[in-house]
């Protein structure tokens, strides 16, 4: 570009564009405040809180679907198996009595050890009542 045009450019630059009116700055400031997005950190906190709430709700739903939690200790079938094994039959008592009074006493002692367990545990078994009709049928005794 020639020197003439360069000096002409310089002359043009001597004039300035009219400054912005304060009202326009205020309008822009107001619009920027109105449309300001939620800050990044606040958005992250909201997302974290939402995630925790969702996880909590999911846990409640899963627990309800699966039912109450299993308590410690044996199940009903385990109680029955445990009780059935050491319990002598009526026939066993007869046989023990036929052998000797000492054999019968030993068998009674064995039963006494078993029945010394807390009653609540025994009563928690609802499938059979010891000595009941169903129990005898299950055992094969009538």
């Amino acid at each position, binding site marked *: 570009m020639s020197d003439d*045009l360069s000096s002409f450019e310089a002359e043009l630059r001597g004039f300035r564009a009219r400054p*912005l009116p304060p009202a326009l700055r205020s309008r822009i400031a107001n619009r920027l405040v109105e449309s300001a997005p939620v800050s990044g950190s606040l958005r992250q906190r909201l997302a974290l809180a939402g995630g925790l709430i969702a996880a909590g709700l999911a846990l409640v739903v899963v627990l309800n679907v699966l039912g109450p939690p299993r308590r410690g200790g044996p199940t009903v079938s385990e109680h029955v198996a445990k009780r059935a094994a050491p319990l002598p039959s009526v026939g066993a008592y007869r046989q023990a009595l036929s052998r000797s009074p000492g054999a019968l006493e030993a068998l009674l002692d064995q039963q006494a050890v078993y029945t010394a367990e807390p009653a609540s545990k025994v009563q928690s078994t609802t499938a059979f009542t010891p000595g009941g009709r169903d129990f005898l049928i299950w055992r094969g005794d009538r």
Partner: protein
Amino acid sequence: MTGGNDWTAWLDAHGPALVLFARQRVPGRADAEDVVQEAFLRFWRSRQRAVDPAAYLFACVKRCALEWLRGESRRSRREEAAAREERTDPTLLVGPVEHEERRAALEAALGQLSEEQREVVVLKIWGELTFPQIAAALEVPVNTAASRYRYALARLRAQLSEGATP
């Protein structure tokens, strides 16, 4: 150079030239300020995506000015504004009082240029953009921007010389 998250720095650096640029498209200064307001908000929300933010800012002004012109609902308002601005529109440029006559002649000469030439002159002289930035803002090749500028400047100079001749 403007940068960061301080919108006031951007507005301070480019605001006057933005209004002057918008004024080349829309009839009155108040309308040009409306256009700049809208364009600046758009620019500020999406500036992170811009390769050259300064060029993008002027491009936003041009787009908003074109949208403003296309607004059918504003047609009557535009005509009213144009009539009103003829009486009350302040000057486009400011300068030393002793050069007031020259300023008026310059504004008159600018008005004689084509819209495309005026845009390039405003972006180069008062927007202080480079030719690649002007090309990006106006979406034209760099050579086109440069040649428009040279022709516009030569024509301006000739008109001002004629005006100065008694």
